[in-house]
């Protein structure tokens, strides 16, 4: 059969010579291409993993120090201090006028030598005030309190400061009054002007409230839109226009949504400025198209046989959608929601327009209170001149990453819970 035929008019075709030099070369080339592609893919993965590792290492390297704080144990003798308050009537108001700042400074000078005042944080007296509020009896006693050290001493304790601060720190260490430990205030306090006093809780709570508003608005609206467009809407020119618009919206730069929020929510509807409510609504506008697109794809992927079978046993169209299509599409919809929410959590630009780039020292009590969010807080701190803010910025980034990780983890858990195979 393979014998060359001379009788046929058609051109002859030799059998493939797999052992021939030309063919061997071609096969080798194909294998080489395969290997190259695999290496290229692996290289891409390694490169991105390298970037991620670099980011994580620098962040954790810088940021871990942001979670610690240096404290100086200071003895304050209230019996001899010039303070005249009846322990029975102590409250925040009466202590504000009690000149605690001067008393703390004097105690520092006395205990740590001249210039000791400069070694403790300028706001250290707040710790003294809280101690008195906690237990008014200390006013007739001699107590020892751990007060936050100044930024210079704090940096010296972490090995990154000027010579004078290093020397002062060495002296403090000799007298054994200085200690560095976990800074729980960083997780429970809010913005401040002194890096030893700042905390992330205000911004964290702001982010939490903003994300809640975003989720509550964009998820139901996004899913309902996807369901309608996929299951009910007729194929007509206007549904095409809606589809194109939604795809467009998903790609619009976020700052545009900020301008929209400013014009509509703030200027037209007079909603409160800087509030988590308006931030959430603005971010919901941005997140919704992502949910709609992911939702439509997930709904499309549900096999038609399932719809037909449900209709066949007598289910109404609404029953088909809510009993069968939506539960099967939910994992895909949740994936889209995660992507959208993760983007919203990291968003800064639109929130600058609606006034969330602000110094807010009180954590928001509700969605209408002035608030800021984690990325904006990071942005604000990175702009501060004081050196102590560098590590606080990195620490805030770690908190943001942890928040993101927790959110994604929850979403993956939900997705696996709802996932069904057929």
């Amino acid at each position: 059969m393979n014998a060359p035929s001379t009788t046929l008019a058609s051109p002859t075709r030799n059998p493939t010579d797999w052992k021939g030099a030309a063919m061997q070369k071609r096969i080798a080339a194909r294998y080489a291409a395969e290997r190259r592609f695999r290496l290229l893919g692996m290289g891409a993965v390694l490169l991105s993993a390298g970037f991620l590792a670099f980011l994580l290492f620098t962040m954790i390297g810088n940021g871990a120090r942001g979670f610690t704080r240096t404290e100086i144990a200071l003895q304050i003798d209230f019996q001899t201090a010039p303070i005249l308050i009846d322990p029975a009537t102590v409250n925040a108001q009466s202590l504000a006028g009690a000149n605690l700042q001067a008393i703390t400074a004097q105690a520092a000078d006395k205990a740590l030598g001249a210039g000791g005042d400069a070694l403790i944080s300028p706001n250290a007296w707040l710790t003294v005030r809280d101690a008195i509020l906690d237990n008014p009896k200390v006013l007739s006693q001699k107590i020892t309190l751990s007060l936050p050290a100044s930024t210079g001493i704090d940096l010296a304790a972490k090995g990154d400061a000027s010579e004078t601060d290093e020397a002062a720190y060495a002296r403090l260490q000799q007298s054994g009054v200085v200690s560095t430990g976990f800074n729980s205030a960083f997780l429970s306090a809010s913005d401040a002007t002194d890096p030893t006093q700042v905390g992330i809780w205000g911004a964290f709570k702001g982010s939490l409230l903003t994300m809640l508003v975003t989720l509550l608005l964009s998820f139901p609206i996004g899913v309902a839109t996807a369901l309608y467009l996929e299951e009910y809407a007729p194929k007509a020119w206007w549904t095409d226009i809606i589809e194109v618009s939604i795809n467009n919206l998903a790609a619009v730069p976020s700052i545009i949504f900020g301008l929209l929020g400013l014009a509509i929510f703030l200027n037209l509807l007079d909603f409160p400025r800087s509030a988590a409510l308006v931030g959430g609504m603005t971010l919901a506008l941005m997140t919704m198209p992502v949910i709609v697109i992911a939702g439509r794809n997930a709904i499309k992927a549900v096999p038609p046989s399932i719809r037909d079978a449900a209709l066949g046993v007598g289910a109404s169209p609404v029953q088909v959608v809510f009993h069968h299509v939506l539960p099967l599409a939910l994992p895909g919809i949740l994936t889209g929601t995660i992507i959208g929410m993760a983007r919203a959590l990291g968003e800064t630009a639109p929130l600058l327009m609606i006034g969330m780039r602000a110094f807010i020292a009180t954590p928001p009590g509700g969605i209408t209170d002035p608030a800021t969010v984690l990325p904006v807080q990071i942005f604000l701190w990175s702009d501060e001149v004081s050196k102590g803010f560098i590590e606080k910025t990195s620490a805030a980034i770690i908190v943001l990453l942890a928040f993101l990780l927790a959110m994604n983890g929850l979403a993956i858990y939900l997705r696996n819970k709802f996932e069904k195979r057929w």
Partner: protein
Amino acid sequence: MKQIVRLAVSAFALSATLSACQDKAGGESAGRDQIRAVGSSTVYPFATAVAEQFVNANPGMKSPIIESTGTGGGMKLFCAGVGSQFPDIENASRRMKKSEFEMCEKNGVKEIVEIQIGVDGLAFAESKKGPGLKLTPETVYKALAANPFGKGPNTAQTWKDVDPALPAIAISVFGPPSTSGTRDSLAELILEKGCQSDPAMKALKDSNEDQYKAACTKVREDGKYVDSGENDNLIVQKLGANPNAVGVFGYSFLEENLNSLNDIPLNGVDATYDNVASGKYPGARPLYIYVKKAHIQAIPGLKAYLDTFAASWNPGGLLAKRGMVAATDAVRSAAAETVKSLPVLNGADLK
């Protein structure tokens, strides 16, 4: 399936609650119990420091909200109207313009109180052993710009290259890094002024802001200008070892080191305290806050906040510690009087 229905129902219920909250928010905005300030990023660190002091001294008061929007952006918000949805205070790193005052008036913001809180000052200095340079914003710009007047890279090597009247000493300037607020002051107060000596650059500002910024505020990176980091002590050491170098830093720092440094006059004006505080020295500009008189009664704590400002702006006070230059005695006592009696700003005084 039931789960999903329950989820959907609770979501809708929550959105309903949410809209109820929105209605409440509309009602609530009639009265606000915390101070809101907007405006300049230069004033921002001072305003936040005062805000913190205010809360510490008045426990129970909510912390003021300070937004950093820039002076111009802040003016737009400030002048949008009177009422609790509009800010009470505008932080400004320059005086209000006449056009802004008119915008305010048009929107019903008729009674504005102007308070000068201090001076933002930048000083040029050299070692006591230095050559005694005399500079102008124009020579500084020509010596330091990366791309003077947008005409290609800077080739000037000595001060004589930029101004024949100056000695042939190599240009060497130690100054603030680009992350510093002092660097912004250098760009705004000196470089831009020098740049605008060319009318073409002034025209460029209106036509292409980005190009203008690049040509006028970008500093050369070939070693003639050296970032000193955040450590101002280092500049003093460097100037001592290097008598021909010029240092740039906040005025308060020059004041502390007058025993080892000489100031360099700009436009023939010495960087003395009086000249900086009065704004005669080109590296200085006054900082203001503007307050709506109509809000003083309506917003709790606003008067006390202004009093805290007045208590913080003295030499050696809270704001001076943060790098602000205290204004002259006369300006401070006038400002303190303003805080007390709250006279209304007259639009005819503005430019």
